[in-house]
């Protein structure tokens, strides 16, 4: 009876008293999580309605930044288009490749399996030190690997500026990004395959599963759906966050903004022009897009194999 009459502050106090240990154990992590993971997004949302340069106090401007983003910034449209191209090409491509390779090497012995796993994962973890070699491979002079070979075999007379010519920037960035985006979803799939209940396969044979593709579709995929969703979420984050590669290889800004992504556009307005309010509005658009892609992909995976 007493509990029902308690005031709200008392009820909160009571709650934390009762679950004190749980919250104390979570507190150190949550402090950093709130300040450096959640608050940046909240701050983005707030600042996206203002004009802000970090020197003067933010000025409220309503939805002006958002109108500007969609109606008045032709390079944002380019950035949006490129980001979507990365997501639509690299997302599914690298997801399917990761999945197939994980499936194929699942039956290998532990040592070769470990080697292939390392090979596919290493490009993800070597970071900028790993990409710099792509600058030599796609270098714009004749010493660049691709130019050198094409010229040697007479397929090319003049070296191509792979990273400076508007027509080639995106294809090259797609190759590089594909190379480095196998990482975490690949590991997840490897683990997922190893963990599928083997008796399901025997049961499947009784039910008339004929070949390995049927086995994959009717047995493996449904039993590792959760891993597949996690892999997809990681892949979405990866694709929508493309930016560093473009800025490092093609420059910031790239020739004619051909390699611009939403992230490089945010770098451009934030780090170079100090238009933080406007840059934050783009960040909010990006986060919303990621969230809806995640919803769509989880819906899709949930329906596979049924």
């Amino acid at each position, binding site marked *: 009876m007493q509990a029902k009459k308690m005031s709200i502050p008392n009820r909160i106090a009571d709650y934390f008293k009762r*679950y004190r*240990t*749980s*919250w104390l*154990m*979570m507190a*150190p*992590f949550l*402090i950093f999580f709130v*300040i*450096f*993971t*959640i608050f*940046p*997004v909240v701050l*983005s949302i707030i*600042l996206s309605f203002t004009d802000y340069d970090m020197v003067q106090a933010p000025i409220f401007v309503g939805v002006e930044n958002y109108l500007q983003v969609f109606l008045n910034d032709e390079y944002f449209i380019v950035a949006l288009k490129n980001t979507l191209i990365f997501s639509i090409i690299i997302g599914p491509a690298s997801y399917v490749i990761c999945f197939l390779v994980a499936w*194929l090497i699942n039956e290998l012995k532990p040592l070769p399996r*470990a080697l292939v*796993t*390392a*090979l596919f994962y*290493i490009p993800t*973890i*070597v*970071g*900028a*030190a790993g990409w710099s*070699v792509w600058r030599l491979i796609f270098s714009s002079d004749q010493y660049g*690997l691709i130019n*050198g*070979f094409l010229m*040697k075999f007479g397929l090319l007379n003049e070296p191509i500026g792979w990273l400076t010519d508007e027509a080639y920037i995106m294809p090259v960035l797609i190759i590089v990004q594909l*190379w480095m985006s*196998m990482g975490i979803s690949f*590991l*997840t799939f*490897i*683990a*997922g395959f*190893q963990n599928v209940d083997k008796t399901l396969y025997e049961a499947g044979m009784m039910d008339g599963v*004929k070949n*390995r593709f049927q086995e994959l579709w009717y047995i493996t995929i449904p039993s590792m*759906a*959760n*891993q597949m*969703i996690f892999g997809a979420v990681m892949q*979405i984050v990866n694709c929508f966050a493309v930016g*560093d590669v473009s800025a490092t290889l093609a420059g910031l800004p790239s020739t004619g903004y051909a390699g611009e992504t939403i992230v490089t556009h*945010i*770098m451009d307005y*934030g780090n170079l022009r100090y238009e*933080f309010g406007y840059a*934050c509005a783009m*960040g909010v658009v*990006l*986060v919303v897009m990621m969230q809806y892609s*995640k919803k769509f992909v*989880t819906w899709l*995976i949930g329906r596979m194999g049924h």
Partner: protein
Amino acid sequence: MIKMKKRKKKLGIDNRRSKIGNGLVIFLLLVLGAFMAFPLYYTFIQSIKPSEELFQFPPRLYVLRPTGEHYTELFQLMSNLWVPFSRYLFNTLFVSILGTLLHVIFAGMAAYPLAKHNFPGKDALFAVILLGLMFVGQVTFLPSFIIISKLKLLNTYWAYLLPSIGASLGLFLMKQFIEQLPDSLIEAARIDGANEWKIYFQIVFPNVKPATLTVFIFQFVNIWNGLSKELVYDEQLKVVKVALEQISASNAYARMGSGMAGSVLLMIPPIVVFILLQRHVVETMTFAGLKEG
């Protein structure tokens, strides 16, 4: 009995797979493997080519006279820097090790109540943490920069360290792993009178070694690669990665060889850490499932 076994083998997985299928599988793996391995191989080859071979037309995929001259040059350049190289090395180790340890400890501590305690609001809290999986550094770098600068942390070690301590991924992986531990283990300790802290540190923590090591790798790699020059601009506080980038950027052409040597050196720590701990990573990712919704 023997007959049964034979029949089982006949029905077994291998027999249902055609030779053509196997050939195709091996071919595909080789092509993809070459694509993945080539840039790493080329980085290494370029770092041991003498300068005249670096600028040779057409470029070679192998080296005729391997040399360590670029590595020597790199070490010379590094020892002539205004700030001693050992300082950059200390900064790097300090930041990556402390940042990784704090993340692993805090994430593990927070994961235990989320996995094994019952308290109102738990599901909502976990949903927010899952949402945080998407708020990675590459997406939130701008507001993070504003926050770090308003907290007066710009140009300090803390600017490198603090933002990644509260990253969602580590907590998520730890929580999924701890959930798999049998409740009876924890109940038994409770009956023996152990408090929650003791249970976590003496029972849960030793039993989730694979998850701890996995989070350790992810975070180490994350910090090692993520250290950027925007947040810290004092030369004394910079890390090896930024110093090496400055060396090769100052004269990209003449220093192509030493730039590649630097890349090779920078790639070694993450690769070594991953290879040593790979086994644990696969074990951890087994539980890294996300439900629909």
